């Protein structure tokens, strides 16, 4: 792979606008990551490519900023007692296996149907997974809010926890005892999705909530450990082939470390289901965005014969919607955080007044 791209073609000249764009998307992506455990990659990779960065370098540089960001976010949330390190590491290792499986599937599709076929598969996976999981999470968030905001462990998770299947594992931090064979599919699905659409958390977090039985707060924080394990493994492979552009990585990292800390602080002010709301909203908007990108690949495969100008507009709207998804997520997080802080201060002032 090292010879795949000539060295002078691999690294673009950076403009001030490009740097500011990456810093800003890094910040917003970090904010969302710190809050829901994943996010940002789906805008950063195409964003970098629109600046002229070749695909593999964009993926590699994005991956290289992901694991230190996840590490900083995980440490912050660990201090708030929200991380199950053991669960994160075990799911992270199974996710690595899922990534390898995902790469093999991608390779097979690429050999069979070429680049357009591969892009089409990625877009379909995006739309199918995000619509299915996103609507389920949104429905659950609405129900939880209506029933007073108290999260309940799903029947499925309770049933799986009651099955004694060797090897059983005890997770002290989340107070869960469950068989390895029920945590492994969650990791595999997260890895498979990470290798396909670059956002494994969209499978990992709902998997940990609905299949294993963690709270949204715990699942989103533990996902940062999973992202660290997956990101470090992925970066080692990409860096081995010399695909990391350290300048791009460090610019995104500069913004995302501000964001990830703020997102982590935000989780302490909201009810658990707020995480589900943000995650579902982002997933559903991104699903629409990827849906708009599908005609481009269908045209490349000569399945449809739509006007090229129209398809170009659809692709631009698609990218715009992805940025919009991230901004909506950031808006909900910041609003919830400001309201939460205000309510807490009000309580403190009332408490102080009653003591006086």
């Amino acid at each position, binding site marked *: 792979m*090292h010879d795949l791209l000539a*060295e002078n073609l*691999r*690294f673009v000249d950076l403009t001030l606008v490009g740097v500011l764009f990456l810093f800003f998307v890094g910040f917003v992506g970090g904010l969302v990551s710190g809050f829901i455990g994943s996010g940002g990659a789906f805008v950063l990779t195409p964003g970098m490519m629109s600046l002229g960065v070749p695909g593999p370098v964009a993926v590699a540089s994005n991956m*290289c*900023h992901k*694991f*230190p*960001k996840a*590490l*900083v976010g995980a440490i*912050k949330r660990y*201090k*708030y*007692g929200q991380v199950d390190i053991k669960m994160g590491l075990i799911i992270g290792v199974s996710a690595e296996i899922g990534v390898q499986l995902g790469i093999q599937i991608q390779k097979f599709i690429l050999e069979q149907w070429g680049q357009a076929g591969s892009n089409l598969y990625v877009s379909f996976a995006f739309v199918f997974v995000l619509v299915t999981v996103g609507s389920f999470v949104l429905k659950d968030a609405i129900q939880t809010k209506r029933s007073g905001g108290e999260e309940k462990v799903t029947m499925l998770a309770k049933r799986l926890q009651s099955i004694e299947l060797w090897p059983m594992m005890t997770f002290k931090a989340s107070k869960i005892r469950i068989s390895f064979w029920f945590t492994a599919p969650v990791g595999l699905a997260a890895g498979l999705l990470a290798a396909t659409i670059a956002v494994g958390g969209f499978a990992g977090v709902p998997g940990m909530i609905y299949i294993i039985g963690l709270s949204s707060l715990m699942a989103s924080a533990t996902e940062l450990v999973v992202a660290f394990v997956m990101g*470090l493994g992925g*970066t*080692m492979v990409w*860096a*081995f*082939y*010399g*695909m*990391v*552009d*350290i*300048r791009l*990585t*460090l610019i995104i*990292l*500069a913004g995302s*470390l*501000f964001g990830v*800390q*703020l997102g*982590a*602080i935000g989780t*302490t*002010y909201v009810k658990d289901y707020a995480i589900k709301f943000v995650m579902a909203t982002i997933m559903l908007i991104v699903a629409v965005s990827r849906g708009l990108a599908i005609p481009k690949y269908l045209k490349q495969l000569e399945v449809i014969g739509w006007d090229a100008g129209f398809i170009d507009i659809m692709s631009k709207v698609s990218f715009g919607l992805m940025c919009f998804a991230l901004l909506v997520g950031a808006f909900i997080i910041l609003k919830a955080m400001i309201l*939460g*802080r205000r309510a*807490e201060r009000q309580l*403190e002032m009332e408490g102080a007044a009653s003591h006086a």
Partner: protein
Amino acid sequence: MTTVQERRKKAKGQAIIFGALSVALYAAVFSFADTMVHLFAKGGLYTALPIATVFLFSYVHGNFTGNVWTALGIEASAKAGRATEKAGAAKRTDSRNRATVTA
């Protein structure tokens, strides 16, 4: 237990120190950007270079960003704070007077 003012004052100092270090690191990287980009892209054993660099930046810049938010008064909810303080309180050593023998 530290007061909010004490915590913010300490964070300000830390933010200045880690901010200066962070600026120095970024200045160093972008002064030698071309050389670094090509060296880091050699692959093979050079894989360790980008990984070590991002770890260093995440420590220095991460400490800077964390302290910036604290210095600005943007901190976790008192509920989360109380949990950590309780844990800290449990580790406190016994400071009661001891019976001593003076010869």
